[in-house]
């Protein structure tokens, strides 16, 4: 049975469906109309495309036999044919990526576009939603974006590229403003006019601002004022040589390469050297977490509040895919920069406020989905997290445990008691003292919702880590 992927409806020439297999695996099928299917058939023979798949920059794609029942089902739905893609284990979105993740995705988009141009092809879109991270490696997934280039055609996706890659990167690199809020609020990214308002006249001297922000903003405003109300829209076309398009793409690559947002010294990005454990307790905690990960039998684990990924690595020894989430950008950035150097990384690092994780949104609330729907976990690890949620984010422990119980999976959760120096620090300047935040209450709340499989006491009783299973 075909199930439509929520975010794949924007391109009218095709649609992506997932098909659940009896063994629990998911197959990803792309159905195409007749012209798009003919284009894709010819794309499969292109050297640049085969090379991209071989080096892992383009998702591995095959053309299933026309006799398969899926092909027949696609034809019954009115499509001309199907192609099959290798499944991406964890889908993530640009508003969950760190600066370097978006930058690497931008460079991949430009590299693939340039390689296609040299072979007489082009990419009709330039959106980061067409790129996914397999582990910590960016992979281009929207093969239907490839079309033969019409002679002397401009870079049609320029505007989309700047809105969804360049402007968010500039926002962070030049102004220090995280792009995640604007990108989550607007799925089409930032417009030139909007972006221009973030900059003062002083920013005009920064590379790319005049060319790609101020100038496009003026052109857009000028057109808007000339063609408003009943004024007829002007038809615009222009002839672009290969040198114009490749020159623009190469200059964009140089610009993106120069954008930088160095890691600041934050508390969490220094976690590995600054945590509050003695060596013995630290060892015991690591052993306990690894044992739970091994026992869980999970295919996907979430490490919530992962910091720089110490426990994510332990989980990755026994779990196929680890989604490492933290609300500190630079801690996640540090994890990504390290992971991307690892061959076969199984860790997808994501930046998210754990008190306000990605929701279902976009058209009809189905275009982009929550992490719960995208990557349901078999194990959730929440170490040294609960005190931040209760005391800093005001989320009651029982509400958080309810949400965890809804995941119907194994859980490793650490409770940090009131006597622990980190909780004392958090409570020092708080008027509200969270009287409900005690070990006794927490243990009761846990037992009401879960079966406690194992537990370990650390730091002379200040902390306790629980290994939980959902109640039958």
């Amino acid at each position, binding site marked *: 049975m075909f199930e439509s992927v929520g975010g794949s409806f924007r391109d009218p020439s095709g649609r992506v469906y997932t098909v659940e297999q009896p063994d629990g695996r998911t197959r990803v099928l792309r159905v195409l109309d007749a012209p798009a299917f003919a284009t894709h058939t010819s794309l499969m023979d292109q050297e640049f495309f085969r090379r991209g798949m071989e080096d892992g920059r383009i998702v591995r794609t095959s053309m299933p036999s026309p006799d398969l029942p899926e092909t027949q089902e696609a034809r019954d739905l009115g499509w001309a044919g199907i192609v099959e893609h290798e499944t991406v284990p964890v889908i993530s979105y640009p508003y969950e990526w760190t600066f370097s993740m978006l930058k690497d995705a931008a460079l991949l988009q430009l590299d693939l576009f340039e390689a296609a141009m040299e072979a007489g092809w082009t990419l009709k879109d330039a959106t980061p939603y067409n790129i996914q991270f397999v582990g910590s490696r960016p992979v281009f997934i929207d093969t239907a974006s490839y079309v033969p280039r019409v002679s002397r055609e401009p870079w049609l996706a*320029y505007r989309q590229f700047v809105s969804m890659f360049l402007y968010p990167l500039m926002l962070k690199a030049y102004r220090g403003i995280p792009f995640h809020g604007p990108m989550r609020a607007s799925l089409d990214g930032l417009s030139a006019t909007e972006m221009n308002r973030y900059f003062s006249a002083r920013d005009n001297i920064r590379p790319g601002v005049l*060319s790609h922000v101020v*100038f496009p903003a*003026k052109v857009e405003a000028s*057109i808007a*004022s000339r063609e408003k109300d009943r004024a007829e829209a002007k038809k615009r076309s222009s002839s672009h040589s290969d040198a114009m398009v490749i*020159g623009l793409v190469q200059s964009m690559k140089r610009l993106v390469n120069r954008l930088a947002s160095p890691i600041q010294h934050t508390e969490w990005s220094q976690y590995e050297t600054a945590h509050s454990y003695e060596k013995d307790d630290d060892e015991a905690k690591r052993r306990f977490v690894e044992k739970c990960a091994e026992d869980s039998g999970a295919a996907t684990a979430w490490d919530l509040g992962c910091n720089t990924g110490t426990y994510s690595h332990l989980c990755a020894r026994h779990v196929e895919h680890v989604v490492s989430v933290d609300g500190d950008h630079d801690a996640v950035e540090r994890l990504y920069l390290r992971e991307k150097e690892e061959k076969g990384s199984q860790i997808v690092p994501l930046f998210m406020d754990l008190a306000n994780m990605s929701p279902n949104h976009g058209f009809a609330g189905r275009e982009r989905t929550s992490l719960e729907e995208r990557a349901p976990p078999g194990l959730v690890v929440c170490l040294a997290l609960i005190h931040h949620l209760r005391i800093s984010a005001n989320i009651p422990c029982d509400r958080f445990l309810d949400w965890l119980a809804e995941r119907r999976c194994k859980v490793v959760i650490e409770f940090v008691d009131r006597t622990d120096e980190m909780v004392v620090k958090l409570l020092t300047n708080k008027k509200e003292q969270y009287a409900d935040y005690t070990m006794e209450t927490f243990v009761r709340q846990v037992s009401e919702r879960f079966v406690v499989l194992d537990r370990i006491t650390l730091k002379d009783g200040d902390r306790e880590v629980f290994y939980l299973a959902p109640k039958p």
Partner: protein
Amino acid sequence: MKLNRNVDIVILFFIMLFASTRPSFAYIDPGSGSVIITTVLGVIAAAGYTMRKYFYRIRRFFGGRSREDTEDKS
């Protein structure tokens, strides 16, 4: 860096040409300016691209590093 400054001066000229700010309206395709923008930026980029191409060829002719060597390090 000097090249960048020259590009900025050319871009400033085009900014003056389009300098008038008004709010946008629902019936105007937000992408309709892209042709103008990519044409102006494309012409400037093509000039740089062609200059670089010939520069690398001349340098290679005189026994300098190839273009690939240079681009790998940029």
